[in-house]
């Protein structure tokens, strides 16, 4: 078998229907308000998968939900106090995952593997099939070329789709992807030399059409060697409204908090929820003492992505999705920070 196949666009729905039989299907859908979101599709006949727009949120919340009960606990009359795990992982097919979001998922795989496999995350992760979609045209705020996570990420997927106009080029990645291609071989034809040339051409064009010119490599090198000027931090801090939006839309912001939510006197749930290092209360200790001054919250976020993760994991954890650029009404985005670092 060759390493690439062709799926006629007319057959996309039936193929997706086949592979998601008995599973949940998540794919980009544009809703009635014009928002494109990775959404659960219950009826493929009445729902259009949107392969043209960038989903506004990443797939992070399917693996690390914004709020998730991880444990239930009970306190008996006699005082017995017991916990049990709540492990939820529905078999899910993700179709149309963009490279930046796949890169985010691969980063989460690393984060949730230390010091041991996080059971709640991996219950979902191991029940997932990831079908990625290369980006023929970068979106407005994208800079994944500079973070080396797109527009056509070459690894981490089960299957990768490339839109060749009237047909998709389909390539297997992980073992599960190959199995799917074998099981549903009747949908596919072997890709021709011309198909592969077309894909190569598309990739070249995509790489040359980024609207954002962001020097991530230079910023990483400078941050490894120099301090960022106080004025740079101050300028960004003055404009940050502490809303946490950037962390919430970020595919790789995984900080969380854990709280108890009592259901009754005798039982309750322990809930893991998204947190953001930009929140003033993130490091505040009991009694109100905060060992970390609030003006350093942005510093923590940007340096985590562009300095500490580089020293720990040898690559930036920014995937260049550009969502924080679009969401911040104060203009405190990572592109602005990187530019400021490069210019200073």
């Amino acid at each position, binding site marked *: 078998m060759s390493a690439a196949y062709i799926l006629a666009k007319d057959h996309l729905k039936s193929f997706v229907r086949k592979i998601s039989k008995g599973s949940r299907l998540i794919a980009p859908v544009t809703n009635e308000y014009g928002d494109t979101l990775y959404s659960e599709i219950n009826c493929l006949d009445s729902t259009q998968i949107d392969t043209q727009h960038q989903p506004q949120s990443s797939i992070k919340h399917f693996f690390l939900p914004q709020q998730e009960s*991880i*444990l239930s*606990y009970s*306190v008996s009359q006699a*005082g*017995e*106090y*017991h*916990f*049990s*795990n709540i492990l939820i992982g529905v078999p899910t097919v993700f179709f149309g995952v963009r490279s930046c979001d796949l890169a985010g998922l691969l980063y989460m795989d690393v*984060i*949730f593997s*230390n*010091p*041991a496999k*996080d*059971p709640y995350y991996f219950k979902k992760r191991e029940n997932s099939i990831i079908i990625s979609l290369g980006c023929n045209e970068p979106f407005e705020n994208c800079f994944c070329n500079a973070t080396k996570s797109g527009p056509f990420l070459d690894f981490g997927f089960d299957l990768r789709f490339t839109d060749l106009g009237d047909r998709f080029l389909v390539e297997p990645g992980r073992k599960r992807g190959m199995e799917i291609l074998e099981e549903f071989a009747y949908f596919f034809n072997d890709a021709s030399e011309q198909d592969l040339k077309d894909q190569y051409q598309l990739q070249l064009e995509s790489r040359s059409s980024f609207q954002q010119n962001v020097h991530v490599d230079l910023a990483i090198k400078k941050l490894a060697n120099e*301090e960022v000027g106080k004025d740079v931090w101050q300028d960004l801090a003055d404009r940050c409204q502490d809303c946490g939006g950037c962390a919430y839309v970020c595919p790789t912001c*995984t*900080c*969380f*908090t*854990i*709280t*108890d939510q*009592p259901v009754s006197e005798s039982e*309750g749930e*322990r809930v893991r929820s998204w*947190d953001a*290092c930009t929140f003033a209360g*993130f*490091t*505040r*200790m*009991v*009694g109100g003492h905060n*060992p*970390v*001054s609030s003006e*350093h919250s942005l*510093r*923590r976020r940007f340096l*985590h992505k562009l*300095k*500490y993760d580089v*020293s*720990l994991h040898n690559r930036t954890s920014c995937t260049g999705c550009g969502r924080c650029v679009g969401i911040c009404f104060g203009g405190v985005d990572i592109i602005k920070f990187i530019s400021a670092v490069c210019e200073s």
Partner: protein
Amino acid sequence: MYLPSQAVIQDITIENSRIKTYTLAFTDKEYQRNFSYAPGQFMMVSVPHCGEAPISFASSPTRPGTIELSVRKAGELTSRLHSLPAGSMIGLRGPYGKPFPMEELAGKDLLFVAGGIGLAPLRSVITFCLDSGKYGTITLLYGSRTPEDIAFQADIEMWRKAGVDCRLTVDESSSDWQGNVGVVTTLLPQTMPLSSSTVSLVCGPLVMIDFVIKELTQMGLKDEDIITTMERHMKCGVGVCGHCHMDDKMICVDGPVFSKKELTESVAHFQEKPTVT
């Protein structure tokens, strides 16, 4: 990894008006038997409906069968814990964190400097040292706010009998206090000259740690011979949640025990670090 195990409060020692020491045992006897830890590590403590908080061991693994955690009443969880009588159940998971380098400290003269509840993790080390007998002279400088606030008095008596040079001080005196008055650094000159094999272990409020470390450096101790343990807001205890992030370190897994050398080398250019200089 987030699943706490049930433990029973076997005994409660009132150390002062705000600190209690809890003697705990896992109700699963097999689990208790196999449970091991080291001085400097901590547990994540669950109290019904209150979530979790990180608490250092105050006991030493040289005395198996139970563990002891000393808790200062400070917030919701610790207040609820303080209201629980002996026999109550709590949840525990751990142990977490990098312990004190007990192997490397063998044979050294140890100078402990503590303030308030900061004596709790050092109590674990002192007990360990006395029980194993592999360490040099032991000196403890302990600062409290007032004479009434002096915690661990029974331990201090025992340590004195075992040959530990315990020197106490209070910030504010009362009429019947005969001892030293002043912050804990005022006791440091009494320990001069330090032997060449002295290592100092410091724990207390951040401001105290700062001042003590500065003075110890002036007294000639090398950076690697000054060891402290840090306190931070923590949620997971296993280096994932991000709350105790300090530069590229996580206090919960890379600490909470750090030498001054580690602190200055790894976070020297980082403004979030405590002002250790």
